[in-house]
Each structure stands twice: as C-alpha cells, then as structure tokens.
C-alpha cells in the first residue's frame, strides 16, 4: 500500500478519467454524469488514503516520487506532500465531488464536456499542490487555465467571452513573468528541483527582482489589490461549478505559490518588501470590504468578499518576517502562518458554499440581483437555514470555520504591530455588514415578488451538497485541531526555513 504512487494516482485518475467521460458523448448525459461522479469519488477516496499514509508529526515532504522527466534541463517528475499541501488536496477532491453533484441537472448542454473539464481541472490543481519541481509546478499552474477558460466560455453568462478572455490573459500575463523568474533560478542553480532552490543562496538584488516576478503571478491568482479586477467578472459570468472551483481552490493556488516560492526561496526580499504585501492586504480587507457592501449582484458581492478574505491569508503569511526577525517571536509567527492556512481551507468551504447557494437561487429565478429576492425564508426554509449558516461563517462567527483563521491571524498580528491588528479587525465589522445585509435583503423580510413565492425548496441532491459544506464548515469551526495538527509540523518547518538569511 505504502509503495503505491498515491500522488500520481491523485493527479492522473481524474485527468485520465476525463477521457471515458468525454467518450460518453453528448447523447448520453446520464452516463457522463455517473462516470464523472464515480471518478471524483474515487479520487476523493484516494486523497483520504493519502491522508492516512501521511505522518503529520514529521512536517517534511512525504510520499515523494522522483522520476526522470526532461534530463536535458534537469527537470524531474518530483512529487511530494507536506501538511499544507495535504490539506489543500483534500479540499480539492472534496469540493470537486460537490461541484459535480451540484451540476447534475443544472448543466444540460454538452454535459460530457463540462464534466470532463472539471475532472481535468481537478487533476491539474492536485498537481500544483504536490509538484516539487518548479517546471512541473508551472506546468500545472498554467495548464489549469485551459479547462477554466472553456468552462467559463461555454457554460457562462451573457458576457462570458469578455470575462473568460480577461481571466485567461490576466493570469497568463502574471504567470509568464514567473516563468522567466524560474528560468533565471535554473540558470543560477542548474536545476528546477524545489528543495534545492529553497537552499540556494541569492543576493539581495536578485531576490528583489525575482520577488516581483513571482509577486505578479501569485498576486493575480490570489488575487490581491490592485490586480483583482478579473475575479468579479469571471465569477459573475462563470457557471456555478466554475465559480465554486475558482473561489474554493484556484485562489488558493496563488497563496500556495507564496508559501512554496516567495517565502522560502526569497526570504530576504520577502522580509524587506513584506510591508508592501501587508499594506496591500489591509487595503484588500478594508477597501474591498466597502466595495462588497455596495454590490447589487450577489455573485459580485461574494467575489469581493473573497478578495477581502484572501487579504487575511497574505497578511498572515507576510507578517511572519516582522515577527521572526524584528520581534524574535517564532510562536506568534507560527500562529500567523497557521492562521493563514486555516483561513485558506475555511474560505474554500465557505466561498464554495456561498456560490453554491447563489447557484441554487439562480437555477430557480435566473437572477443574481439582490433586489429580485426577499423573504426566501418563507418560500425555502431549509435553504434559508443553510444560507444563514454560511453567511455567519463568511463574517467569521465563532463556532464556524471562518472565525478560526481570522482570529489566529489577528492574534499574531498584535504581536507584530497593534496598528495592523486595528485595521485587520475592521473586517469583523465590514464583513458582518455586507454579509448580514445580504442575508437580510435576500432571506428575510416579506416576500415581495410573485416568483419568489413559487420557488420550491431544495431537493435531496442540493441538500446533500449544502449539507456536506455545512458539516465541513462546522467541523473546522468547532474542532479545528485535526486541521491544525495536520499542518503544524509543516508550518514549523516552513518557519525554520525563513529564519536564516540567504544573502
């Protein structure tokens, strides 16, 4: 069992599983649905096996696989997971099952292609999380764009072509600078192997240039202010499943890039320029929070709230250097990174659930505008219960997963600088503001519209999907220990990498 190439299976089962789904053809949508569900469930099961085989106490890379790939440029097929990537992989496989379940009757046109694109996307995202070779990482990082481009472009809303082009070109623009940075690193190190790059000494000037090359890629993907503008468009136009994957997982790929590349490869530049990221994160938290407040389109609102929440992740990651090198407080630094990681996972569940909720409403009324709704609690009581729960998680109510990560980041930021805490804590007010106001206008109040009155409550399939999300949100919120325990040793390992200077 332990000799099985579990990580390769995780990547290739969904990627190649897309082929029979495609072969099912347009004429047999039922077959395509069941096949893709089977593939995604199998992948989820494999990811649980991976979790079982992983030893959390040892935070280094485990389950490694190393094969020749392109010897001419010393690039290898090198995979491995630590606690951080293991958590994100399970998040990916879990969400994909729900997305495929969520698309069941919603997608009617070219079902096989939709499902196949989702499976390929899943394989590529898992690949990003376990690649230990920089070129391999880049391959997965970029290849993800193709299925997402197709998903938004074919099954999206009226402005889908604009949105998907913007999405593709924006992200491509960011990441291609990253590629040049990687090739430069190769030029210096003579290898693309990530563990070697982590220990590669670099001068400060090199680090600063590389830092910006990497920053463009990851900032676009995360997304950070001011390069976030593709996200609202992509979210609004994408089909529900596309939005869920985009918010729940693809955004994490950006912050995961910071964890794997910017921090350990360029610790000194990350230290020196940490203030920039911290400022941008605070701007995201406060300014984007206000932007979310005025949105009339529910998807846009959740999209902006995603940007604000990702601000917490980048904040947690980059206050580390202040804590480590100026305050010599590794405990607080660990708490900050830990918080950022929990926030990544939690945001995956919460934003995925929020977009699924909006999808459920959209399927019934074909509108995403807040003013078209009102009083859903009377027409759809079950749905309303779920929606309120996720909204509470979105504004960080204790007992839900949203609270844990934000609280940890805020706590550790206090050790760095109370001013940061002051600004970051604004989110508790603004976040509550836009989410509760959304809930008030959509779920509560009197039923104004005839259409709303006739909306049926959620069916069993939707209940299962939302129920799974709810269970995850509550589990992490009430008992975060399994999650933090999984990542603890790996975070400590990361912190130890960041302590030493590389100049």
């Amino acid at each position, binding site marked *: 069992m332990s000799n099985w190439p579990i990580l390769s299976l995780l990547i290739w089962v969904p990627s190649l599983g897309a082929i029979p789904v495609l072969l099912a053809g347009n004429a047999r949508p039922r077959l395509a649905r069941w096949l893709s569900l089977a593939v995604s469930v199998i992948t989820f099961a494999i990811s649980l096996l991976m979790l079982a085989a992983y030893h959390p106490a040892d935070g280094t890379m485990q389950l490694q696989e190393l094969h020749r790939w392109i*010897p001419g440029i010393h690039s290898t097929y090198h995979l491995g997971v630590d606690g951080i990537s293991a958590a994100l992989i399970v998040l990916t496989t879990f969400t994909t099952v729900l997305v495929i379940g969520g698309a069941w009757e919603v997608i009617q046109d070219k079902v096989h292609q939709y499902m196949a694109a989702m499976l390929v996307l899943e394989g590529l995202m898992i690949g990003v999380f376990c690649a230990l070779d920089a070129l391999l990482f880049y391959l997965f990082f970029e290849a993800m764009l193709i299925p997402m481009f197709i998903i938004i472009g074919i099954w999206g809303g009226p402005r*889908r*072509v604009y949105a998907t082009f913007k999405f593709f070109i924006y992200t491509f*623009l960011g990441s*291609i600078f990253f*590629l*040049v940075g990687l090739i430069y690193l190769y030029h210096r190190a003579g290898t693309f192997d990530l563990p070697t790059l982590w220990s590669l000494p670099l001068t400060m000037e090199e680090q600063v240039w590389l830092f910006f090359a990497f920053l463009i890629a990851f900032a676009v993907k995360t997304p950070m202010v001011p390069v976030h503008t593709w996200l609202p468009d992509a979210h609004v136009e994408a089909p529900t499943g596309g939005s869920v994957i985009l918010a729940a997982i693809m955004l994490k790929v950006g912050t995961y890039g910071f964890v794997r590349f910017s921090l350990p490869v360029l610790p000194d530049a990350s230290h020196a320029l940490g203030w920039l990221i911290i400022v941008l994160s605070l701007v995201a938290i406060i300014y984007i929070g206000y932007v979310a407040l005025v949105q009339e389109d529910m998807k846009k609102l959740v999209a902006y709230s995603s940007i604000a929440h990702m601000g917490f992740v980048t904040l947690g990651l980059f206050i580390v250097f202040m804590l480590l090198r100026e305050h010599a407080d590794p405990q607080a630094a660990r708490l900050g990174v830990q918080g950022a990681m929990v926030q990544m996972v939690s945001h995956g569940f919460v934003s995925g659930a929020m977009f699924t909720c909006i999808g459920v409403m959209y399927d019934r009324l074909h509108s995403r505008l807040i003013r078209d709704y009102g009083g859903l609690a009377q027409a759809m009581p079950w749905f309303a219960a779920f929606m309120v729960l996720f909204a509470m998680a979105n504004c960080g109510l204790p007992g839900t997963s949203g609270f844990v990560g934000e609280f940890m980041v805020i706590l550790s930021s206090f050790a760095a600088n109370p001013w940061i805490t002051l600004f970051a804590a604004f989110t508790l007010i603004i976040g509550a503001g836009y989410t509760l106001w959304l809930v008030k206008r959509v779920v509560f109040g009197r039923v104004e519209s005839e259409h709303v009155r006739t909306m049926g409550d959620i069916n069993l399939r939707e209940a299962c999907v939302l129920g799974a999300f709810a269970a995850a949100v509550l589990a992490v919120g009430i008992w975060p220990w399994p999650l933090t325990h999984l990542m603890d040793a790996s975070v400590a390992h990361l912190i130890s990498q960041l302590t030493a200077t590389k100049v």
Partner: protein
Amino acid sequence: MFNLNDLLVMIPELYLTAAACVLLLMDVFLGDSERNITHWTAILVLVVAIYLVVFGQPPGTATAFDGMFVRDRMAEILKCFVLTATVIMFVLARPYLRDRKLQYGEFYSLTLFAVLGLLLLISAGNLLTLYLGLELFSLPTIALVAMNRESGLSSEASIKFFVLSALASGLLLYGMSMIYGASGSLDLAAIYRSAATTAHPHLLRYGLVFLVVGIGFKFGAVPFHMWLPDVYEGAATPVTLFISSAPKLSAVAMAYRLLESGMGAMAGDWRIMLAALAVLSMAVGNIAAIAQKNLKRMLAYSTISHMGFLFLGLAAGNAEGFAAATFYAVCYALMETVAFGIILTLARAGFECEMIDDLKGLNRRSPWFAGMMAIAMFSLAGVPPLFGFFAKVMVLKAAIDGGMLWLAIVAIVAAIIGLYYYLRVVKVMYFDQPDETAEPLRAQADMPLRWVLSLNALALIALGLFSGPLFDWCQAAFGIS
C-alpha cells in the same frame, strides 16, 4: 576525385533524386483516375528515405566531396522531420486536391525535388552546395504556389515569391562573394579558420550582413517577411502547409552552417543582428496577426512571430541555443501541420475554410476536430502542458543562459500579445453559435487524413508531457551530452 565512400555518405539524397525522376516518368503513364498510385508511391518514397536517413548509414559525422557535403546528427534530426512533415502533408492534401481537380502528378514530383533541395541545404558544407540546395528548393516551390492556375491570387503570390526570393538569393550570393574575397575559400570550415586571422575583417563583416539577410528571408523574419502572408494566403492550402513546415526546419540548418560553422568567429556580430530580427519579428508578427480575419494570413503572421522566438535560440550563439532552436523548429513544424490540416479537413469542393469565422460552432459539428484545433492553438500560444510550451521554455532558457535576459523579457511580452489571437480561434470554435445562413461545416471522411491528423495533434500532447527524449536528441546533435 571522389570515391565510392563519398556516394555512400549521401545515399538518402541520391536515392531521392532517382526516386523523384522515376516518379515523374511513372506519372506520365498514369491517367487522372490512377493518380492515387502516384500519391501512395510518393509517400512510400519518403518513408524509405526516412529509413535511409535514420538507419541507412553508419552513425557519426562524415563529409563527402572534400567537405562539400556534411552529414552529422543535426542533419539526421532535421532531415527526419522534413521528410515526416512532407509525408503528413501528402496524406492531408489528397482529398483537398482531388476535390479541386488539382491532383496533378507534378505536384508530387515537384514537392519531392523541393524536399531534395531542403536535404541538400541541411547537409551543405560549402557555400555552393548551400546555394544549390536553396535554389533547388525555391524553384519547384514557386511552381507549386502557382499550381492553382485559375486563381489570380495564386499567380500573384507566386510572382511575388519568385521576385523576392530572387532578390534574396542575389543578396546572399553577393555576401558570399565578399566572404570569398576575404577568406579565399567557399568551404565553410576553411572560412571558419580564416575568419579569425583575416586581413579584411570589415569585408567579412559586410558579407555577414548579407548572409543574415538571406537567412532572415528564408525564415520570413521581419523586415524580410513581406512575401510570407501573401504566399500563405495565395497558395493552395496543401502547399501552404508544406511551406510553413519543412523549410523552417532546414532554415535552422542553414543558419547553423553559415553562422556557426562558417562565421563562428564573428558570433558577437551576428548574435546582435539576430536579436534585432527576433525583436522585430515578434513585435510585428504578433501585432499584425491580431488584425487578421483570414485564418491563413493569421497563421502567416503567427509564423513570423514564431520565427522571432526561434531566433532567441539562434541568437544565444552556442550549442545549447542551436539545440533549442532545432527543438523549436521541430515543434513548430508539427503544430503547423495540425493547424493547416484542420483547414484542409474542413474545406470541400467549392468551399474554402479560410476565414476565422468559418470555424464558428465547430465544437457542435465535430467536437473531435475542434479539440485538435484547440490543441494546436494552445500549443502555438505556448500554454503548458503542450509541446509549444516546452519549445518556448527551451529558447527562453537558451537566451537567458546566453546573457540575453532582456531579449527573453521582450519575448514573453510578445507571447502575451500573441495569446489573444490564438484564444480567439478557440472562442470562435467553442463559444460562438454557427450562423443560421452559413453552410454547415463538415469534416472530410477520408480515413488516412483523420488518422494522421489525430495522431499529429495527439503528438503535441505526448511530446509535451514527454519532451525529454526529443530534447536529448536535439542536444546530442550539437554535442551536449
């Protein structure tokens, strides 16, 4: 004097000469209805030639006729893919030519002679052999471009091609004469030796400029690209396919022989010239391609920009760089055969699938071919995990290793601009609905065509995921182990 060993070194070329002549004669006795015999014979001829190139000779480097003809591992790779690209072209071309009553026997023999020219060019060890190969390629190709006699566009393209390639040949010859004057020899190895010690470095440098012009014309690099869009658009699509794939491979050899083997001592000069051509080609090619509505013209401008990318490898001026450029040329040829192959597949009697809008809603009509075209487009754009991405990585790496980081950054900016028009083709196929009035698209039912095209497209994925062996082969050709 020559001996028998000299002949053995150039067995594939001798064989191809004989075979092309036999094919020409044989076709005289065949009626129009028996043209398929010529077709399959021509393919057989090429397959045997591939066999002879790869297995028919002892490994290692050899020269013949006092260094006039060089056979080395680079020549082996490039010849192999020149022949392969031509085989693919023949298979894809048949239904198209048959439907248009263009399936002349001359098409096959002219193509074989042009291929022979390419092989000679690849193996040239002397300025004269090089020129001979170049002209042997150009003249039959000019005739091929004009093959569609009824089309004014074809004739125009042919004349344009003829005049401009005559001009380029003239410039090349002029440069060669100066080099001969400075070094006293036409042999590339001798020129290399004398370049370091010559009493006339300026004359040599002057000659070098003209050589670079000739090379630039052959690749279609800006500002010597004017012929390319018109020829691509005007020629019958199979001929365009041929021009866009095989000659680019041999152009790499031409650049290597002239610049590295001949003028290696002046690398500092030609590297900067090639870098300038690369910047211009990437900029002009990518920006002009955005404005195109005609698919063939768009691909022509995309060719120009890709040649700019290929020049990144050449401009690095070392073995790594030439290996990367060779890899890029192979990749490029295989991508072009898919892209033009789709155009051929969708064309039928009385309908040319030439405008980008003609592809509207292809995903509904024939999802398989839409997928193939999408693979080709994403590969041309350089999105991983496809072949085109790795080709780009290799040339970028060569440029950075060669100390031209600025050139690599210019190149990626160009790649971002280029992304747009490739995505547009995918958009038209996948996101747009077909016009109500337009005739429905129908893919050719010709079985060999479907198989070859599909294999070709799948090779773009396979060679992307497993690019190691091919890249090793390219590196070994330039002595990097």
